[in-house]
C-alpha cells in the first residue's frame, strides 16, 4: 500500500493545563474521504491546524504528503488546499477576481472558469461577493481551496448553516472532487454528512482516537440488534432482534397483505456516535476552546 496522505503518531498539544490533543495516532490514506468527528473541545480543530501547518505541536510525529507541516516550505502549500471556516474580507471583490489572484500563487492552477462552473458560481462570477448568499459564499470558500489543484483538501465544518437542499448540492460537489482522486479530510458536526461523504470515520474525544472505521461499521453497528417495528390493532409495536429477516417472514405470514407501517432500523451513526462519546462529554469540556 502506498504512503498515507496524512500520518500522525503520538501527536500532543497542551494549552496551559488543558491537554487538547493527547497522543493521537491516525493515518489518512491517499484518495479517501476521511471524516473527523468529535464533540467541541475534543481536539479536532487543534489537530487539523497542526496538519495545516498553522499550529506547532508539543510532541509526536506528523507527516502530510510526506512533509512535516511544521516549518514546511511554501512549495508544500502548492499541494494542499484549505477551506477555512469563513473567508471574510472579500466583500468588495468578485468571485472571479479573488479566484484569479489566488490562482496566480500556484504553479499549475485549475482554470478559473472551470472552478466557477464546478462550484456553481458562474452566474455570480462578476458580482460583488457581498451580495452572495451563505451557501454561495461557502462554495466560494471551496473554490478558493481547490483552485490550486490540491492533492489534499481540508474541509472544516463545510455546511454549517446550510438549508437541506444546499447541503445536498454541496455534498455532490465534494463527491465530485473525491472522484478526481483528491484526498479530503473533513471535520463536521453532522453525522449524516459523514455518512454520505466519508469512506472512513474517526471519532476523537479528549484528544484521543476512540473509534476508527467505515461509517457503516463504526462502533460495531453492523452486528448490533435491529429494531423491527409495525402497527397492529392501532398500536405501535416493536421488537429488537439479531435476526430481523426471520421476524419479517413471521410478520408477513400473520398479515394478509402489507404489514402496516413496517420499518427495520439499526442504530443510526448518530446513536453510535453519541454512545461512543458519552463518557467524555461533561458540562465543562464543551466550554474548552478547540
Amino acid at each position, binding site marked *: 500500500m502506498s504512503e498515507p496522505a496524512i500520518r500522525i503518531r503520538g501527536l500532543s498539544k497542551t494549552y496551559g493545563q488543558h491537554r487538547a490533543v493527547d497522543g493521537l495516532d491516525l493515518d489518512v490514506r491517499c484518495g479517501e474521504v476521511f471524516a473527523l468527528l468529535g464533540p467541541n473541545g475534543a481536539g479536532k480543530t487543534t489537530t487539523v*491546524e497542526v496538519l*495545516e501547518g*498553522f*499550529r506547532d505541536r508539543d510532541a509526536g510525529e506528523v507527516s502530510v504528503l510526506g512533509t512535516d507541516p511544521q516549518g514546511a516550505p*511554501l*512549495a508544500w*502549500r*502548492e499541494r494542499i488546499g*484549505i477551506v*477555512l471556516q*469563513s*473567508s*471574510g*474580507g*472579500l466583500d*468588495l*471583490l468578485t468571485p472571479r*477576481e479573488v479566484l484569479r*489572484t*489566488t490562482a*496566480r*500563487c*500556484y504553479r499549475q492552477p485549475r482554470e478559473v472558469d472551470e472552478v466557477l462552473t464546478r462550484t456553481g458560481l458562474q452566474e455570480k462570477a462578476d458580482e460583488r461577493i457581498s451580495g452572495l448568499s451563505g451557501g454561495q459564499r461557502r462554495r466560494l470558500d471551496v473554490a*478558493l481551496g481547490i483552485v*490550486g489543484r490540491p492533492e489534499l483538501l481540508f474541509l472544516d465544518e463545510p455546511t454549517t448553516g446550510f438549508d437541506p437542499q444546499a447541503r445536498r448540492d454541496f455534498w455532490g460537489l465534494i463527491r465530485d472532487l473525491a472522484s478526481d482522486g483528491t484526498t479530503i479530510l473533513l471535520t463536521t458536526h453532522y453525522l449524516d454528512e459523514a455518512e454520505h461523504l466519508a469512506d472512513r470515520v474517526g471519532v476523537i474525544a479528549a484528544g484521543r482516537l476512540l473509534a476508527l472505521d467505515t461509517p457503516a461499521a463504526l462502533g460495531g453497528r453492523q452486528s448490533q440488534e435491529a429494531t423491527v417495528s409495525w402497527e397492529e390493532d392501532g398500536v405501535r409495536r416493536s421488537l429488537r432482534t439479531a435476526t430481523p429477516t426471520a421476524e419479517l417472514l413471521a410478520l408477513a405470514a400473520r398479515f394478509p397483505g402489507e404489514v402496516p407501517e413496517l420499518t427495520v432500523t439499526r442504530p443510526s451513526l448518530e446513536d453510535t456516535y453519541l454512545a461512543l462519546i458519552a463518557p467524555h462529554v461533561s458540562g465543562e469540556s464543551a466550554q474548552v476552546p478547540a
Partner: protein
Amino acid sequence: MNTLALGLDRTVVELKMYSREKEAVFFSFLFPILLLSLFAVIFSGQFEDADAMSAGRFFMPGMVAAGVLLTSFQTMALSVATERDDGTLKRLRSTPMPPVAYFLGKVGLVAVTSVVQLVTLLVVGRLGFDVPLPDGGRRWLVLAAVFALGVVAGTVLGIAYSSLSTARSIGAVVIGPMLVLQFISGVYIGWQDVPDWLRQVAALFPLKWIAQGMRSVFYPQEMASLEMAGSWETGRTLLVLAAWAAGGLVLCVSTFRWFKRGTV
C-alpha cells in the same frame, strides 16, 4: 509567478478594494483636499497680504503632511487589523504566496494613493487657490525626499500599529491619537501658535517633521525664522524621518502576526 509579479498583482487587488470602499476614499484620500479647500475659503479674510501668504499657501504644507499620514499610517493600521481579524491574512497564508508579496501589495497601494493625492493637492492648490508650486529644483527634491520617507515610515509604523488592537476598536485607537498628533504638529493650526512644550512633544513623532519639511518646500524662505530652530533643519528632518522608517521596519517585522490573538 515570481514574487515581484505577485506583489504587482496584489497591488492591483488592493487598489480595487480601496477604490470600492467609499469611506476609505473619503476619509483618507479626499479629506486633506477637502480641508485645504475649506480652510482656504474660510480663512481667506485673515490673510491681508495674499501676495506674500494666502490661506491656501499657509495650510498647504499641513495638508500634504496630513495626507501622507492618512494614506500610509491610517490606511495600513486599519486595513491590516481588519484583515487579521476577518481571516484574510490566514487565507493568504494558506496559499503558496510568498509573504513578501502581501507587503509589496500594501506598499504599492500606499505609493499609488499617496502620489495621486499629492498631485491632486498640488493641482487643486495651484488652480483653485493660487498656491505657488515649489520653486527650484532643490525644493522639489526636498519635497520628494520628505514625502517618500514620510510615506515609508507611515506604512511600516501603520502595519506595526495594527497589532495593538482588534478590528472592532482599531478605528478609535488610530483616529483619536492621530487627531491629537495633527493638532500639536501644526497641521490644522499654525505651528508658531502651538505652545513650546507641546511642540517639544510633537517633535518626538514623525508628523511634525513631515510638516516642517513641507513648510520648507511651500513657504517663502524668510519664514524659516519662525521655526523652533530658526531654520528649516532639512538635514535633521530627513535624518529623523529615516530613523523612524528604519525603526518602524524593525518593529513591523518583529511584531507582525498573521493570526488574530487567541486563535493560534
